[in-house]
């Protein structure tokens, strides 16, 4: 194990990162992927156990973790525990991997886009938003006791909020950022008092490229997996061309950059939160 003698924990190097959807790995499969600019080899033995190693010497095994339907690894000292999503163990929920999409953008840009409501009427027209309902109402942002960033009391008018929608609704959102490159959304379910959980786990291939893994933990018992995946892939497919036309590709952390407005409160907090943790990978430090 490459144990560096560092005084402080590196929020990126010492964190867990997703490198594949477990359900898409088959026994005996060998696969190469990239994380933080390094090539990694994934190997699944005939018992289904995954091992991960750097493609370049030394080929010592890296730590792995199979969680939420993804294979996670860490290139540094795995001292930062993987965040919890307690909803996955609740009865009546479906945990799904919606898909993995490569995007030529940095992980924090993708996270920031996931945290953004103002683009719904324009990028996800007639699904997550529709003109003229474009206003982003004031919402709350806080950092909780375990240093996770939250945006709460977010509301937005949505024509088709989910696969279970039959009409438009004022949707309540809560966003949670437990990891520099992972973001979780809790969203009003059209059919249940509890909330749907939708997450984006970014695999930072390098500073300007990601594999975006889309995780779902839904209260939808009726629709087919294919239909639910189609819905999420449609949404993400609409975001991809926007993200790939955004420059610079790394996220600027200077608070003066890119004309923030009140609707960007959570993005402003996310940029500061990254700065405060000392994240320097895939960002332009302030």
């Amino acid at each position: 194990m490459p144990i560096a003698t560092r005084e402080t924990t590196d929020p990126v190097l010492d964190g867990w990162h997703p490198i594949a959807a477990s359900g898409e790995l088959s026994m005996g499969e060998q696969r190469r992927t990239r994380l933080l600019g390094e090539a990694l080899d994934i190997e699944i033995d005939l018992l289904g156990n995954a091992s991960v190693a750097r493609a370049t010497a030394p080929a010592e095994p890296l730590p792995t973790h199979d969680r939420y339907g993804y294979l996670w690894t860490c290139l540094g000292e795995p001292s930062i525990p993987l965040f919890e999503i307690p909803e996955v163990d609740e009865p009546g929920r479906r945990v799904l991997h919606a898909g993995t999409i490569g995007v030529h953008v940095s992980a924090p840009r993708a996270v920031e886009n996931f945290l953004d409501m103002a683009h719904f009427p324009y990028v996800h027209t007639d699904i997550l938003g529709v003109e003229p309902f474009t206003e982003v109402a004031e919402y709350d942002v806080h950092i909780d006791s375990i240093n996770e960033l939250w945006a709460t009391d977010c509301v937005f008018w949505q024509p088709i909020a989910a696969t279970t929608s039959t009409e438009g609704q004022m949707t309540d959102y809560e966003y949670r950022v437990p990891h520099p490159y992972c973001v979780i959304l809790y969203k009003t379910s059209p059919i249940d008092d509890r909330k749907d959980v939708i997450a984006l786990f970014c695999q930072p291939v390098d500073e300007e490229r990601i594999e975006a893994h889309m995780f779902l933990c839904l209260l939808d018992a009726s629709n087919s997996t294919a239909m639910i995946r189609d819905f999420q892939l449609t949404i993400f497919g609409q975001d991809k061309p926007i993200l790939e036309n955004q420059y610079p590709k790394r996220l600027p952390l200077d608070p003066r950059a890119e004309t923030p407005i009140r609707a960007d409160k959570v993005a402003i907090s996310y940029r500061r939160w990254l700065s405060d943790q000392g994240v320097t990978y895939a960002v332009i430090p302030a």
Partner: protein
Amino acid sequence: MSDVDLRDEAPTGWFPVATEHDVIARVVFRGQLDGRELAVWRADDGFVNVWENRCLHRGVRLSIGCNDGNELVCRYHAWRYANRSAGCTYIPAHPADAPSRTITAQSYAAVERYGLIWTTTNGDEGSVPDIGTLSGPRLLLRSLPVNASPQTVREHLGSHRFLPAALLETGTAASADDAEVVADHGESWVTITADAAGESSTAVFFVQPVDPHRSMIRGVLADAPADEIPVLRHHAYELGRLVRKIEEAVEEPAERTPPRGFETPVILPANPWGHQRATLSMVVDRKAAVAADIALFELVPEDGSTPPTAQPGAHIDLHLRPGLVRQYSITNGPGETDRYRIAVKRDPHSRGGSAFLYEAIEEGDTIEVSPPHNGFPLRRNIPRTTLIAGGIGITPLIAMAQALDASGMTFDVHYFVAAPQQIAFRRRLATYTCEFHVGLTPAQTTDTLLDILGTPTPTRQVYACGPPPMLDALKAKARALNWPADAVHVEYFENTNEIATDSSFVIDLARSALTLEVPSGSTMLDVLRANDVPIVSSCELGACGSCAATVLGGDPLHQDVYLNDAERQGGQVVLTCVSRASGERLVLDL
């Protein structure tokens, strides 16, 4: 050939970045000059805009946005940027806010000549090359990209050959290699005259530096052949051969680099207070009667520049003579950005401004104008808007009607006038859903307002401007019908309330760490000014909202007509020009 790094000697001057065919209606073309990406688009009024290709909000390319004919709309959050001025006119996430004037995209001067769009990114110095050969008939040839530096391309262009147009039109067995050519090298172009079989043609090839390793050859033939097709085909073929030859001669293809400037985020300049106070000298370009006692004035900047961006609902201050400052709503529609249009009514009761303007100011006169301020911003997130005008109060509403119309939104106009000859903007209003209410008594007016308002719904809003009694009646009726305060927006021309100035109190300025005394007879604004606290003001009559300050403590005694009931009761904002403290102290966020 040695690879010259042109970044050290960035090309200066004017270069073509697009052809007239690239900037057809409602299209945004992505151009590039010296590594810098450009969004090039033509507005419906014909003006060609050349801007840095990034939205100021999140750095998304503007070239993937939408050209609606008047404004360029970003693809991501639909921030709207105005034709010419490049100022942001609307941020849909915050429909009730007028965007700050500092939110203006970087724009570059643009000129159309020889069928090409020219620009310069090194300041406005110099001009488009004046090529006498191209002053007559001409034919724009197909532009071709080359993976080579502009210098390499210019050198190779010296040996380019083609056949005269006259031979091509009649059909010939000759080849381009049979032509005798004379090449004349200009700064960034090569003029080539080709002779063969007694015929002659001249073409000019401009070289656009795309980046240090890439160029675009943009050729223009100094001739207008009756049959263009064989001529265009011949030039496309011969130029294609030249491009292949150049690229073969270039040793290594350069790797693609991100556009210059794209590695750093967009950052707005800090907001200079002084900037807002500055006035602009504007000339009356046109004065015309548009209704009885109403004159339209068109004001253009004296220096030929583009005036600052205005949004629907905004007004400008005209400094008519020392001590005589008057506000007028801008009546322009979206995209009409080369001038301000205002309408002035001669009012026998006027405090002097309108009468002076109407009678004494003529075409060619110069007036000092403060940049637009918007205290009456138009929300565009409500499905249906009703615009209610009383007399000359039509002026901000006609600007709103044009903006709503351009956005395809539903709206209706109600226009109250004393007599039919007082109706202004009649032709434009005829294209909208508009009802005229002529010669009504105050009681009839109130009844009509009641009918127009009807039962409030969350999908409808009202904007009204007119004489104070009419607006007071409207507000009273709206309250009686349970309209929410933030769905009925009114703008008064003037504040007819009696304003008390006899109290004295103290203001604490939280940010400036100053405590100031406001004696009886003075206003907060007077005291702030006297102590050099930066604050913007305009009407100073409690009508325009320019001088609003945030209240952190204490209860304001509101004497303005600008704030709505919700804002008044909230007690968090005060107009420093007329309002006072109801107690002994106010704490302001200044």
